[in-house]
C-alpha cells in the first residue's frame, strides 16, 4: 500500500522539464559512452572458443598471481597518492583562502598547472630532475655521496601521481572553503574555539564536500591512470596490465577487457564509499553575503613561515614544469645536472610546424569543457534537487567514464561510428572532428561533475524556495540563483576538464584521422618518437602549459570580478 502510494507520489513529482533534460543526457551518455564501451568490453563475458556467455574469465583474473599483485599495487599506490596529495593541497588551500595573502589567485592558478603534464615529455623531465641520474641525485651524489630513490618502482608512481593530481584536491577544497558561511566560524569563535581546533572541528568538516570530491577523484584517477606507470616502466599495476593486453598486436585475449571491467567496478565502488561518507550530513549554507571565511592578517613571523611553506610546495609541484622549460631551451641534456647549453631553435621549429595543433587544442578542449560543465551542472541538479526515478544512475554512468581506458573508448568509437557515413560528404562519422570533442568531453565529464555536485551541495535549497515564493520560475531560479552560487565549483570543473583535455592522448591517438584536425597531444606524441624531437616536443609542451595556465588565470580573474560585482567579496 505504502509503496504504491509512494510511487504514485513520485510519479506526480516528475515534471516534464527535468525529465526531458534527464532523457537528453541519458541519450548522450548512452550514445557516446555506454554503447561504444559495451561494444568493446562484452568480450570479457565471452567464452573465447564458443562465444557463449561465461564468467570463467573473471575466475581466471582472481586465480592469477600477477593480476592480484597488480590489483594490490594499484590499491596501495592510489591510497598513498591521496595521502601525499592531501599533504600538498591542504596547506595551499587553507593558507590562500583563510588569510590575507598576496598573490592568492596566482598561487591558485599555479596550483592547477601540475594537472597539465604533457604525455611522454613530462616523464622525461621528471627523470632528468629526480631520476637515478637526475639533477637532484647527481648533485647529492657529488656533494654528499648518497642519492634518494624518488623514482624507483611504486614510490616513483606515488611521487609523480600525487604531484600530478593534487590539484583535484586543491581546486575542490578551495572552492569549498570559499563557500563556508562566515557565521559558522564566528559562532565557534564566540564560543571560545580557536586555532587548530577551529580548523579541525568547524572549518575542515564544513569543507568536506570539496575535500571528498577531490580525494575520490585522485583515488580513482590514480587507480585508472596508465600513462604514468607505463612511462616509469612499472607494469605490475592494473591499468597498465589492461592496456598492454588490449594493445598488443595479434593477441586477442579477453583478460584486458576483464581488467577494464574490474577497473570500472572499483571506481564505482570508490565513488559509492565516498557518497556513503557524505550521507546524512547537511553542508548547505544559507548565508551568502559573507562570502566565505573571514580572511585575517598574519603576524610577520607567521607570514614568513606561510610563504616558505607555499614556496616549497610550489617548487616541488612545479618541478616537472621547470624541468620541461629547461629541456625546451636545452641543446643536449644527458647525464648532467643541467643542460650543456641553451638555444631558442626548438621554439622556432614549433612555431613553424605546429600552429595548427595549438588552435585545434584550444577549440577542442574548450568545447569539451563547456559541454562538461553544462552536463555536470544538469546532472548535479537532477540528482540533488529532483526526485526523478533513476537519477542516481546518470551520476554513476557519467562517473564510470573515469575508469574507461582511453584506448577502449577510442576503439569503441571507431567501432560504433566508423560505419556511419556523414551527411553530404559521405566520410565516416568517426573522422569528423566533433567526435573527438565528444570523446574528450566524456573522458573529462567526471571531473566537472564532481566539482558541480560539491558546489551544489553547499547551496541551501531554502534559497531557491525563497526565490520561488517570490514567483520566480524554476528556470529563472536556476539562472539567477543556483548557477551564480555554484560559479566557483563550475569554474573548478571547467578548469580541470579543460586542462586535462588539452593534453589527453590515449583516446585521441585512436581517433585522429587527419593531421589538420590533430590536437597538440598528437603533435607531442609525434615529436617524442625521435631523438631530434625531444627539444621541440618540450617546447610544444611548454606552449600547452602556458596556454592552459593563462586560461586558468583568466577564468579565476573573471570569477573573482563577478563576485566582487555581486558584493560577495570583502
Amino acid at each position, binding site marked *: 500500500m505504502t509503496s504504491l502510494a509512494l510511487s504514485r507520489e513520485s510519479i506526480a513529482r516528475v515534471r516534464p522539464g527535468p525529465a526531458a533534460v534527464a532523457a537528453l543526457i541519458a541519450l548522450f551518455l548512452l550514445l557516446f559512452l555506454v554503447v561504444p564501451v559495451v561494444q568493446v568490453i562484452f568480450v570479457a563475458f565471452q567464452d573465447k572458443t564458443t562465444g557463449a556467455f561465461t564468467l570463467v574469465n573473471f575466475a581466471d583474473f582472481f586465480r592469477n598471481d600477477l593480476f592480484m599483485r597488480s590489483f594490490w599495487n594499484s590499491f596501495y599506490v592510489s591510497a598513498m597518492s591521496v595521502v601525499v596529495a592531501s599533504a600538498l593541497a591542504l596547506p595551499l588551500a587553507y593558507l590562500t583562502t583563510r588569510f590575507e595573502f598576496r598573490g592568492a589567485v596566482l598561487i591558485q592558478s599555479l596550483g592547477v598547472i601540475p594537472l597539465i603534464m604533457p604525455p611522454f615529455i613530462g616523464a622525461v623531465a621528471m627523470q632528468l630532475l629526480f631520476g637515478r*641520474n637526475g639533477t637532484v641525485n647527481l648533485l647529492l651524489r657529488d656533494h654528499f655521496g648518497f642519492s634518494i630513490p624518488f623514482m624507483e618502482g611504486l614510490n616513483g608512481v606515488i611521487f609523480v601521481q600525487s604531484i600530478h593530481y593534487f590539484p583535484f584536491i586543491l581546486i575542490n577544497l578551495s572552492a569549498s572553503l570559499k563557500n563556508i558561511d562566515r557565521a559558522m566560524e564566528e559562532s565557534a569563535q564566540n564560543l571560545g574555539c580557536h586555532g587548530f581546533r577551529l580548523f579541525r572541528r568547524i572549518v575542515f568538516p564544513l569543507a568536506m564536500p570539496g575535500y571528498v570530491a577531490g580525494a575520490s577523484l585522485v583515488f580513482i584517477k590514480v587507480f585508472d591512470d596508465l600513462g604514468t606507470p607505463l612511462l616509469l616502466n612499472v607494469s605490475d599495476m592494473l591499468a597498465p596490465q589492461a592496456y*598492454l593486453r588490449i594493445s598488443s598486436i595479434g593477441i586477442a585475449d579477453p583478460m584486458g577487457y576483464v581488467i577494464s571491467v574490474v577497473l570500472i567496478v572499483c571506481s564505482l565502488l570508490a565513488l559509492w564509499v565516498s557518497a556513503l561518507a557524505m550521507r546524512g550530513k547537511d553542508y548547505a549554507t544559507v548565508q551568502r553575503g559573507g562570502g566565505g571565511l573571514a580572511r585575517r592578517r598574519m603576524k610577520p613571523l607567521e607570514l614568513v613561515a606561510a610563504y616558505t611553506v607555499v614556496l616549497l610546495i610550489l617548487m616541488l609541484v612545479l618541478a616537472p614544469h621547470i624541468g620541461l622549460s629547461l629541456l625546451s631551451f636545452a641543446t643536449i641534456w644527458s647525464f648532467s645536472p643541467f643542460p650543456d647549453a641553451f638555444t631558442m631553435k626548438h621554439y622556432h621549429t614549433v612555431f613553424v610546424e605546429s600552429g595548427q595543433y595549438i588552435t585545434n587544442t584550444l577549440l577542442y578542449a574548450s568545447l569539451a569543457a563547456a559541454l562538461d560543465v553544462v552536463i555536470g551542472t544538469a546532472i548535479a541538479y537532477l540528482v540533488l534537487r529532483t526526485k526523478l526515478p533513476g537519477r542516481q544512475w546518470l551520476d554513476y554512468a557519467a562517473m564510470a567514464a573515469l575508469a574507461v581506458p582511453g584506448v577502449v573508448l577510442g576503439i569503441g568509437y571507431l567501432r560504433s561510428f566508423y560505419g556511419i557515413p556523414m551527411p553530404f560528404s559521405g566520410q565516416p562519422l568517426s573522422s569528423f572532428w566533433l567526435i573527438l570533442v565528444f570523446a574528450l568531453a566524456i573522458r573529462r565529464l567526471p571531473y566537472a561533475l564532481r566539482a558541480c555536485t560539491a558546489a551544489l551541495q553547499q547551496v541551501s535549497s531554502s534559497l531557491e524556495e525563497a526565490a520561488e515564493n517570490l514567483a520566480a520560475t524554476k528556470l529563472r531560479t536556476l539562472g539567477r540563483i543556483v548557477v551564480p552560487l555554484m560559479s566557483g565549483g563550475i569554474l573548478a570543473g571547467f578548469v580541470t576538464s579543460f586542462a586535462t583535455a588539452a593534453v589527453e592522448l590515449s583516446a585521441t591517438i585512436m581517433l585522429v584521422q587527419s593531421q589538420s584536425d590533430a590536437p597538440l597531444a598528437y603533435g607531442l606524441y*609525434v615529436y617524442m618518437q625521435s631523438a631530434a*624531437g625531444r627539444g621541440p616536443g618540450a617546447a610544444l609542451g611548454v606552449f600547452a602549459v602556458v596556454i592552459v595556465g593563462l586560461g586558468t588565470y583568466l577564468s579565476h580573474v573573471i570569477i573573482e570580478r563577478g563576485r566582487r560585482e555581486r558584493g560577495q567579496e570583502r
Partner: protein
Amino acid sequence: MSRTLRSVAAALAFVLASGTAAFAQDPSGKLVIVTSFPKDLTSAFQQAFQKAHPKVTVEILNRNTNAGVKFLQETASNNGTDLFWASAPDAFEVLKGANLLQAYKPKVEGIPEKVGAYPVNDPQGMYAGFAASGYGIMWNTRYMKANNLPAPKEWADLTKAIYYDHVAISAPSRSGTTHLTIETILQGEGWEKGWRTNKELAGNYRTITERSFGVPDGVNSGSFGVGIVIDFFALSSQASGFPVEFTYPTVTTIVPANIGVVKNAPNKLAAETFVDFILSPAGQEVLLQPAIRRLPVNPATYEKAPAGYPNPFKDTSLGAQVNFDVEVSQARYNVVDALFDQLITFQLDDLKAATRAIHQAEAAIAKKPNDKARSLVAEARDLVAAMPVTAEQAADPQLAGAFTVERKSATDAVPERQAQVEQKWAAFAKENYAAARKKAEEALALAR
C-alpha cells in the same frame, strides 16, 4: 626493325596494355599513410615525394605500430588509408593474415632478394622492404665513464656482473623489433641456450620499457647506461648530438622495414607510385640523412653514403651469422612474447635478486675457490635458465591456439585459456628464481 621503330612499337604496346589508365599515370589527389615512423623520416620522404609528384598531397598519420594495426582492422569496412608503413614485419603479417593488404610488385629493378639472411620482400608480394635495420648495443659515454664501465662488444658481455642494473631493453610483446632480437638469439643459439642467454641478459636489466623509443630515450638522458636498440635509434641520437655510441654484435639480424598497400586503398595509383618512389635511387638516398640513418635496400645507394656507413651487402658478417627462419618465428610468435613477459618482464625483481646472488657468490668463489659452492652456483644458473616449455611445445599449434583470435569450430580440441597458461609459467619462474637465489646464497656462505 630499326631501333626507333621498335621503341615506338613498345610504346604503343604499353599504351594499349594500360588502356585508358595511361592518361591517369600521373597520380593526383590525397594519399593517406598510416605510419609508426618518426617525423624526421616521414617528413623527409613527404617533401621529396611531393616535389616529384606535385599533384599528390601526402597526409601522414602517425600511430604506433600496434595502434596502427588496430586502426586498420577497425576501419576496414570503410577504408580511408592507402599505405601502411612501419618497421616490424610481424605487424604486416597480422594485416596480411586479416586480408587487409593488397599485393603490389614494385617496378624498381636492382633490389636484391635478401638483406643479411632475411628476405627483403614478402613472398606473396603483400608488402615490400624499403630499408634495413639491425639490432645492436647503444651506450651513453658519460654514464659509462662515471660508472667505470667498459664499452660492450657482444651480447655475452652484457651478461657480466659489472653491467648489473645498467642495461635496458623494450618488451618484445610491445616492440616488434625487440621480438626479432630475442628470436634471433633463440634461433642463433638454439631454444634452451638462447633462453639462458636471454635470462642472463635480463638479470642485468635496469628496466624493461613499454615502447621501443623508451630505450634510446633513457640512454640519451642517462637514466641507464646501456640499451639494446635498433641501429637507427642510436645513429640518429648520435646525429642529434647526444653522447652515445653504438655497435653491432656478431649475432644480429638485419631486418627490413616495410611498406604495404592497404586493401581497397582509395588512391591506389598514388600509393603504388609512393612505393616505387621510396625504392628509387632518389627515395633511397633520403635514408642516408643524418636524422634518419637507415640502411638502404638498394645496394647502389651505398656509393653515396658517408665513410663508415654500415653496408650489409658488402660487410657479410653483418647479420649473416644467423639464418633467420621466418616460418619458425611465425609459428611461435605469441608464445615467445608471452614467455618473455611471464618469465622475465613481470618477474624482473625476483630474477634480478637471483642474478645478484649468483654474481656475489661467483665473485666470492673467484677469490676463494670452493668446489661445493661452484656446483651450487651451477645449479642456481640452471634453475634460472630452466624453461616451462620445449621448442617443440612452443611451436605446437595447440599452445599457440591459446593466444590467437580465430574461433575454432566445435569439433576442434579446446586449447587452454591464455590466462591459465600464463599463470602456470609465472608460478614456474617465481619458484625457480627463489630456489636459485637460495642456492646462490648457500654458495656464498660456503665461499666466504
